């Protein structure tokens, strides 16, 4: 307190009486009871409003993420398809170009050969012309020799001697030339035959090659309608031929059986108490998704899944009638107070109910049976993304490890039970109870998961997947309540599913 407001009698008087007054609570200085409840209500409202402020963000974020992923997947899928098609076209064009080059080079060779043949034919014609001249000359010589033989028939030896010895007769030179020309002509003739033969063979080869090329040329168009392929068990079980280049994006859908365990810690409300509990459930799961291959080992997957879990169970409890315990009379009716432990996908619930026993004449120690049928239902949709790493791959089988994050929407979480009371075979009373567990739980929650997937690809894009994963909610699933109980959902899933890759 400052000096300036210390000294004043009036102030001092008020200060001494009103500062830290020691007065008993009286009507005038005690606030109404509803002030505290009003404050609590206002605080709860504030919390709800804060949540509402944050909640639409999740509402918007999840579909937005889905939209973005789907859009990106669509764009990238389309682009990869286009790239694939362009690659195919490019490969086709390259094949065509190679074929054309071969044809062009062979055409050039043919032209060259044709030119050679033309030149050789010209040379041949020239030789034939020379040969004909020589033949004429030889004929003249022969005529002259014949005339001489006629004229000098008795001296044939001498003539032959003259012919064979060019130095003996001046015509001998001509005879020699004639012989020589004849020899040359003979040789030339043989060569031309061979040449023509070769040319003929060559031409035949060209024709054959051209025919062959005409067969190699542009591939015929595939029919637009594929022939109907009859699927058989063998065709399913055939291993898929991995001839095509692997696509970066792959879309798939699968349906499978789920074997799941849920574990939840304490949650309670006025009606029943849930304790730690482990329980296994069967269900189905449906999945549509896409995978993007980052490289040979890593891939990203985006899935939209749905899990539906049902569990029907029955348990029977046999008691003995004991008037001092669990039974009491109310309005002249005998009532049985039965307590139950109820298993549910979300854990173990304890409850207590009363069954009417009127009209039954019971004696101490009589056996009493109560039978409880429980039907539990849990439906969860999830949008998840995961990073996958290929641990092992052999042929069409691969083992992948994955770590992921999922956004879940709990559509339904309820259980109903029918409790029947029997006296021997006679049903005395039954009661049906239904509990909506969503009243206690948040409908939206985030989960992380880690798992292993064994996948085998078969023919016709069919694949079989065996999966096992551990999942855990990232925050409490319990709605805000007075006890501020924190509840996490976690457990193991194993699944077997068959799917189709698009």
């Amino acid at each position: 307190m400052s000096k300036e407001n210390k000294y004043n009698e009036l102030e001092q008087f008020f200060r001494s009486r009103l500062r830290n007054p020691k007065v008993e609570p009286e009507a005038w200085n005690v606030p109404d009871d509803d002030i505290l409840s009003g404050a609590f209500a206002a605080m709860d409202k504030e919390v709800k409003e804060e949540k509402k402020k944050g909640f639409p963000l999740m509402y918007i974020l999840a579909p937005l993420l889905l939209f973005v992923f789907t859009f990106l997947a669509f764009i990238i899928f389309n682009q990869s398809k286009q790239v694939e098609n362009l690659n195919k076209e490019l490969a086709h064009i390259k094949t065509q170009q190679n074929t054309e080059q071969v044809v062009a080079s062979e055409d050039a060779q043919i032209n060259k050969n044709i030119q050679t043949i033309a030149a050789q034919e010209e040379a041949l014609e020239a030789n034939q012309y020379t040969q004909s001249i020589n033949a004429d000359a030889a004929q003249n010589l022969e005529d002259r020799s014949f005339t001489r033989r006629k004229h000098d028939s008795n001296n044939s030896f001498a003539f032959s001697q003259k012919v064979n010895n060019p130095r003996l007769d001046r015509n001998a030179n001509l005879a020699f030339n004639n012989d020589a020309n004849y020899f040359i002509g003979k040789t030339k003739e043989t060569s031309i035959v061979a040449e023509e033969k070769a040319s003929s063979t060559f031409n035949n080869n060209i024709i054959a090659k051209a025919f062959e090329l005409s067969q190699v040329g542009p591939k015929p168009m595939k029919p637009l309608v594929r022939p109907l392929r009859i699927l058989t068990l063998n065709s399913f079980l055939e291993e898929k031929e991995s001839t095509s280049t692997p696509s970066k994006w792959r879309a798939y859908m699968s349906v499978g059986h789920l074997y799941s365990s849920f574990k939840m810690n304490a949650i309670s409300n006025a009606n029943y108490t849930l304790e730690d509990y482990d329980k296994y459930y069967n269900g189905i799961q449906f999945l549509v998704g896409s995978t993007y291959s980052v490289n040979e080992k890593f891939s990203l997957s985006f899935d939209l899944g749905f899990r539906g879990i049902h569990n029907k169970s029955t348990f029977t409890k046999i008691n003995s009638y004991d008037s001092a315990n669990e039974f009491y009379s109310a309005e002249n009716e005998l009532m049985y107070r039965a307590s139950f432990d109820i298993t549910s996908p979300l854990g173990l619930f304890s409850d207590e109910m009363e069954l009417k026993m009127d009209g039954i004449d019971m004696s101490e120690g009589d056996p009493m049976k109560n039978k409880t049928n429980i039907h539990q239902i849990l439906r969860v949709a999830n949008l998840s993304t995961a990073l996958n790493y290929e641990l092992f791959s052999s042929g069409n089988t691969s083992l992948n490890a994955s770590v992921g994050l999922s956004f879940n929407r709990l559509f339904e979480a309820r259980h109903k039970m029918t409790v029947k009371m029997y006296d021997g075979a006679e049903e005395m009373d039954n009661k049906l109870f239904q509990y909506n567990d969503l009243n206690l739980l948040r409908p939206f929650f985030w989960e992380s998961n880690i798992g292993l997937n064994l996948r085998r690809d078969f023919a016709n894009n069919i694949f079989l997947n065996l999966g096992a994963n551990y999942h855990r909610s990232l925050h409490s699933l319990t709605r805000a309540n007075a006890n501020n109980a924190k509840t996490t959902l976690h457990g193991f899933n194993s699944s077997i599913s068959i799917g189709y890759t698009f």
Partner: protein
Amino acid sequence: MQLEEIILLAKKQDRKAQTALYHQFKSGWFMICLRYCSNRADASDALQNALILIFSKIEQFDAVQGEFKSWSSKIVVNSCLMFLRKNTNRFQFNELKEDILMYEEQHTQDDVLSVEEMTKMIQELPIGYRTVFNLYVLEGYTHVEIAEILEISIGTSKSQLSKSRKLLKQKLEVVL
């Protein structure tokens, strides 16, 4: 349960602990509200706002720096000031009229005034007088601080205090 334990639980937003705190301090908190507000209904509203502030800000309370009572009283005072600010367009420091100065003789003629009567005297002061008087005399703020808190001049604060003194003196003279 010790106060420290209750505060610890209240920090965890335990409703039972918050309720226990309320029951332990409600009278003192409410009397502060009664001094600042002109009637019980307004004081109740101011207290409700104060409770929300106390429970939501209790994590900031550090026992080393002071007692819970003084810490929570400051919050109650601030809450009252916020309430007055919200429910009156602005502090009306010129509202004093001669007719208000006429103190109606409606109090007991005991020699010693009760806390209730003194509180009522303050309640009956005009809002400006009342607020400055409470802040200066009972909370121990200086005029500079009051001027800052109420966004008025130091002179106004001083004159309001002077007038409140004068009025209370008149009232006391009537009563005593």
